[in-house]
């Protein structure tokens, strides 16, 4: 097209500025590493308070404790990235520990797969209810939380079920390279694999577009509903895997075993710097967040903080961590 009629777009460069604002500032770059900085600072503070803390033994214990929380938080992070929330993870995890203890005598080594698959399917049902019935994810999973707790109580006769066959999960208590507990290694592996799959495929732009602006994602023809259902499925499956870790460590399944992990998991996600409004964040961030949360829970009693103060400090540190880690340039609305 070289007809003289065409207005040369370069002819009026002053008409509008090409870029309204510049590249990310140094402060913004630091902010994106803030969760890691917070983790290191916390580790340093605990070591100063009690020099014995920084030993291989207590660190190994800490990361082993963190494994179920890492998996729970990582799964729920996907739902949060899509702009939703999954409140059912802890209750589903408790229910899954009951499944595990009940199915182990019959299924043996296949129990792990069965529990993860069942929990994933339950997550998928919640996702389908959310997209088909158009009910907010907050409500669907709040209802799910209640239902799963009740089912767990009913099928377990409201008490713990002992795990007798310990061979099936004995491998989870091994160590990788001598020091890294297998359960933590598996947790990191899950984060790595899911992150990699998202990163290398169009899923990343689907998830982020859905989280930032669902209407724009829909009008661009992206499979918004399928992505959301997938996120809930992975979140459910992660709850199942976390249940396997918990049940194998406690040698029992219990209808309330993981119930106290819901708020730590949500805390791990936000401390990691994932925007609760969706779009911005990653599973790696939640891994870091889960480590921060675990260090607080494990470390504060070790350094001699009285248990009453522990909760105050815990709450204050989480709020402070979010204040530091939240990248406000990426989050348009703080709600």
């Amino acid at each position, binding site marked *: 097209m070289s007809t003289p*009629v065409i207005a040369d777009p370069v002819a009026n460069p002053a008409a509008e500025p090409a870029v*309204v604002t510049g590249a990310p500032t140094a402060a913004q770059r630091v902010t994106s590493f803030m969760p890691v900085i917070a983790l290191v600072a916390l580790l340093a503070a605990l070591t100063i308070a009690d020099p014995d803390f920084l030993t291989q033994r207590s660190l190994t214990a800490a990361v082993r404790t963190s494994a179920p929380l890492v998996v729970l938080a990582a799964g729920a992070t996907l739902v949060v990235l899509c702009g939703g929330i999954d409140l059912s993870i802890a209750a589903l995890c408790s229910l899954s520990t009951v499944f595990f203890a009940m199915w182990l005598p019959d299924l043996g080594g296949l129990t792990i797969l069965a529990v993860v698959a069942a929990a994933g399917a339950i997550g998928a049902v919640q996702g389908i209810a959310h997209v088909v019935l158009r009910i907010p994810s907050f409500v669907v999973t709040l209802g799910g939380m209640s239902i799963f707790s009740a089912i767990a109580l009913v099928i377990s006769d409201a008490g713990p079920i002992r795990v007798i066959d310990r061979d099936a999960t004995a491998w989870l208590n091994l160590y990788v390279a001598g020091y890294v507990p297998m359960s933590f290694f598996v947790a990191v592996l899950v984060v790595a694999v899911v992150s990699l799959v998202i990163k*290398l495929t*169009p899923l990343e732009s689907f998830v982020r577009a859905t989280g930032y602006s669902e209407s724009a994602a829909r009008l661009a023809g992206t499979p918004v509903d399928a992505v959301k259902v997938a996120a809930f499925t992975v979140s459910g499956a992660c709850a199942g895997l976390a249940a396997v870790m918990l049940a194998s460590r406690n040698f029992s399944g219990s209808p309330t075993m993981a119930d106290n992990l819901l708020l730590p998991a949500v805390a791990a996600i936000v401390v990691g710097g994932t925007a609760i409004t969706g779009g911005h964040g990653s599973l790696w961030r939640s891994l870091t967040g889960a480590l921060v949360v675990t260090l607080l829970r494990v470390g504060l009693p070790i350094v001699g903080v009285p248990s009453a103060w522990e909760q105050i400090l815990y709450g204050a540190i989480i709020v402070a961590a979010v204040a530091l880690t939240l990248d406000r340039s990426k989050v348009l609305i703080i709600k």
Partner: protein
Amino acid sequence: MSAVTTHPQESPATVNALEVRGLVKHYPGVKALDGVDLVVKQNEVLGLAGENGAGKSTLLKALVGLVRPDAGEIWVRGEKVRLRSVVDAADHGIGMVFQEQSLVPNLTAAENIVLGSEGAGVRRGVYRWDTMRRLAQEQLDKIGSHIDPLARTDSLSFAERQMVEIAKVLRIEERTSHPPVIILDEPTSVLESAEIETLFTQVRRLREFASVVFVSHRLDEVLDVCDRVSVLRGGQSVGEVPTAGAEPADLHRMMIGSTGSDDHYHDGLAERSDEPARPRLVVKNLSGRTFRDVDLEVHAGEIVGIVGVHGSGREDVCRALFGAEPTLAGEVTLDGEKLDLSGTRGAVASGVGYVPAERKIEGMVGPMSVADNMMLTKQKARCTGPMVVPKKQATLVDTWIERLSIRTPHRGTQIGRLSGGNQQKVVLARWLVAGDIRLLLLDHPTRGLDIGARSEVYRLMRELANSGVATVLLADSLEEAIGMSDRIIVMNDGRATKEVSCPSGGKPTPLDLVKEMV
């Protein structure tokens, strides 16, 4: 405008109710107001006319304190004022009836009328219903309305709610001893003709004790109800005319200005060829929630504009063709194949593209990069198997950045940091990267863009049409629809009522279309 040079204090009888001098307001990339002057005299109805983007809304917002001008002055009854909020404006006796109604639907008319300025209607934090009812009734009496103050707002008709709004705005009389200035922004756009007559009666009644600024797209209405009309174009005042003896065509000429010989719409680029035997898009008896029995045909390489007033249903037809708005009946075929409109995925897979009117909310994902936004829809073009191949993406995105002259520092830059025109080009490119586009649905593609960016979008539309893409255009103004379209469909109350041929060299005038639209 002799009023500017007189000293208002010396001759109170001729003091202007409201006066605007040299008002300027810039937004990034756009001069919304570029030196606007306006005079509203005591007890007159002043019409305000101008195309979309002429600066009417910004001017009105500045008058009620919602927008702070960068430069210029606002004078109220000979006194220079600075308006920081709606309350500020109300204290100076200026109130506005908003285009989108601002009443709370689940409250009574009385509650809505006193809301925010309850005064004696509340004692110790508790509503005193008899006082509230009396306060509301006083307001309704001013306009002679018989609406029950205790009726729930959502049980009232649109026209009745508008009366409640006017009654509510008239409460500003209590804040000032002077006659108020009432602004009516597009008050007739959703009214039936009988209701419009009632509204006009009200406006004439208002003139007895107030000044009125009346904004409407319908020029015959403006001429009917106003004493004078002030015309805006491109953020500037282009003149004012007394309505006595004026014709809609005169106003239109002022609103458009001389189009001149520069080919703004790149008409010279339009290629005429013999129409292929079979049209690309065939819509038969399409019905939805807001439109009925719409028939439409678009040939390959053709641009078809759909025009209609607010509420004509044209936006919903456009969305329905993309599967983003439910259809109740009818059949849509693309190149002879039935189009699946149950969701947007089917349309996308068939080579239909849609550029939404709300670019920042629906068109793009602001925090994501130019590349991610451009590749969001046609993922296959940047993938090998299930994997995104960064090299493939880089080559493709850079090619389109160059072809559409998108000004961005890098393909990885956040799209939200680009100017409106460049953002829109990225959104358009999204449909072009795979080279499979057959039908492009453009919903106000130039909204909010400045003239240079508009021109580039027009040129792109021409090039796409010449390459065989069928285009449906919902233009931002009648002039744009006429300038760009080969044919224009007029929609009225959800039905396609008229088809106007619009060939190069034989274009209809905006007035020809306005006649069909109302």
